[in-house]
């Protein structure tokens, strides 16, 4: 038994632990998987609720006001009240909607989110599953999310929803290219598709500065393009309030609307976490190659904290942009991607390849 526990905790990811247990005792493994499931659901809900709260508070302080104040200390329970209310609200299905697709759409949206969350290494010992094709997996499953949006907009049988969904589809397909190209830069640097290995490869320095201009440019492109994928200002065309009423989720109410709402915020976390993992070293502390004493001091801060700090910083950045900028127009959005970001991404990829060939890293 002791050996088993030791084996379980030596394993890095949830799936490895479950495998380790499964080889020994089926019921223990089943219990472990159940526990893991509950933890994941709780993690997602708490993360979503706190992100909504943070967003509302940050927005309020950007706008010289206070934000939620009445429910709990400084309104800290506000989003819980919102969640309970949304869960118990009447669920309306429009008469002429396509019922099955209408039900499926929010589930697909949240499914994509949860799947993408699985592979992100939160700390060296906390990761659900460490796939050797992690990046490809993320790029693949995040595509399901837009399918949910498209289905939702189409099945609502509402012209505004349809317009919003079509915008979302066009936007996602376009910006996915830039996102993938900037992901490739990090893959080139690290020489692996496995996320844990990408993090390990940044032990001597984060790719954002170790990879010269290529890393920095890839990071910026990734931030811009993934903000567009998140449907947030200045790219919030699919749900542009002043243009399309509610966009693709105009007809959704109650629980199903909260699924869209939740997946949007968890997606924001995923994008921030991915950016942190690929370019800012994930849970890896701030290291400078060669300065061993400095690195040792940095190692004192737990890796989970490093990861949380980096992710929080990028989330704040995304929120800052949202509450500052106006919105682009549809054709301007497309022009930005196809005429500016895409060529830049390709050029950057070639530059990254040159950097690798010449091995001209900082602190190699």
């Amino acid at each position, binding site marked *: 038994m002791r050996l088993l526990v030791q084996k379980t905790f030596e394993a890095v990811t949830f799936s490895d632990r479950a495998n380790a247990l499964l080889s020994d005792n089926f019921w223990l493994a089943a219990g472990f998987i159940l526990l893991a499931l509950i933890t994941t659901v709780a993690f997602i809900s708490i993360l979503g609720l706190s992100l909504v709260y943070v967003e509302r508070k940050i927005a309020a302080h950007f706008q010289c006001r206070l*934000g939620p104040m009445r429910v709990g200390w400084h309104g800290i329970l506000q989003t819980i009240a919102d969640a*309970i209310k949304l869960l118990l609200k009447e669920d309306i299905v429009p008469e002429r909607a396509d019922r099955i697709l209408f039900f499926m759409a929010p589930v697909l949206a949240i499914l994509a989110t949860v799947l993408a969350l699985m592979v992100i290494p939160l700390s060296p010992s906390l990761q659900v599953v460490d796939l050797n094709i992690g990046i490809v997996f993320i790029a693949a499953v995040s595509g399901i999310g837009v399918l949910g949006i498209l289905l939702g907009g189409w099945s609502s049988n509402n012209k505004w929803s349809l317009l919003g969904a079509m915008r979302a589809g066009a936007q996602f397909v376009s910006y996915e290219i830039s996102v993938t190209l900037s992901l490739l830069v990090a893959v080139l640097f690290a020489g692996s598709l496995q996320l844990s290995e990408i993090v390990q490869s940044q032990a001597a320095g984060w790719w954002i500065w170790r990879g010269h201009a290529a890393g920095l440019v890839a990071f910026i492109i990734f931030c811009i393009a993934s903000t567009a994928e998140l449907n947030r200002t200045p790219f919030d065309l699919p749900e542009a309030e002043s243009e399309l009423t509610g966009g693709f989720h105009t*007809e959704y109410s109650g629980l199903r609307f909260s699924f869209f709402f939740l997946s949007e915020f968890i997606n924001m976390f995923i994008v921030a976490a991915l950016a942190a993992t690929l370019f800012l070293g994930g849970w890896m502390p701030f290291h400078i190659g060669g300065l061993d004493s400095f690195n040792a001091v940095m190692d004192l801060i737990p890796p989970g904290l490093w990861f949380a700090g980096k992710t929080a910083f990028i989330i704040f950045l995304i929120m800052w942009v949202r509450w500052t900028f106006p919105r682009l127009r549809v054709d301007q959005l497309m022009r930005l991607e196809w005429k500016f970001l895409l060529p830049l991404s390709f050029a950057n990829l070639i530059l990254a390849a040159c950097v690798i060939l010449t091995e001209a890293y900082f602190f190699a």
Partner: protein
Amino acid sequence: MGLTKEKIAPAAEKIPGVSYLMTRMDQVINLARSNSLWPLTFGTSCCAIEMMMATGASRHDIARFGAEVARPSPRQADLLIIAGTIVKRMAPRLRTLYEQMAEPRYVIATGACTISGGPFIYQSYTTIRGADEIIPVDVYVPGCPPRPEGLFYGLLTLQQMIRKGETIRQPGVRRKPVLCALPPEITLADIQKEMEELLKKDSEVDVEQTRKELAWPTGLNK
């Protein structure tokens, strides 16, 4: 009265403790609902500016009560703040908007026009004399237009009403409404008591039936 009691079979109440639990659950649910009133962005005229002042302006900031998440789509909104005059052409649209909102839904009527027709009662061939001719109203906020503080008072009154479980309605049937701006010494309970006495007979009004019976109030001429 409450939500859980409607859904759970009465037989379950006989089990000891269930009744207590349900009451507690109702309280929690009502607390959550009262603290998360997302308004619909709806406004027709002057009152809408004061409503925007209340919801938007940093000085007043309705966000403190958790009600700043203004939803443009009626499906996701809980609170319909009728701000501004309702005319004949708008009336069916207002009715549609109300029907598109998901239960539980609450209505605040702000301003003289939505309460009675305001300055446009006489000689106007379109103005509806009070939004409650069209949809049931929970709280009235008088003023022309009411100050943002007045709207907050209305919102807080509505929150109190929800916590007491007083606004759950059957479709098509409505309770008599409560006026929000009370003088300081009169409490909500007093008004309710008085109303119950006065309106014992028709404490629940069938909207369709009343409309048929009640012609336009010609008595107002005097």
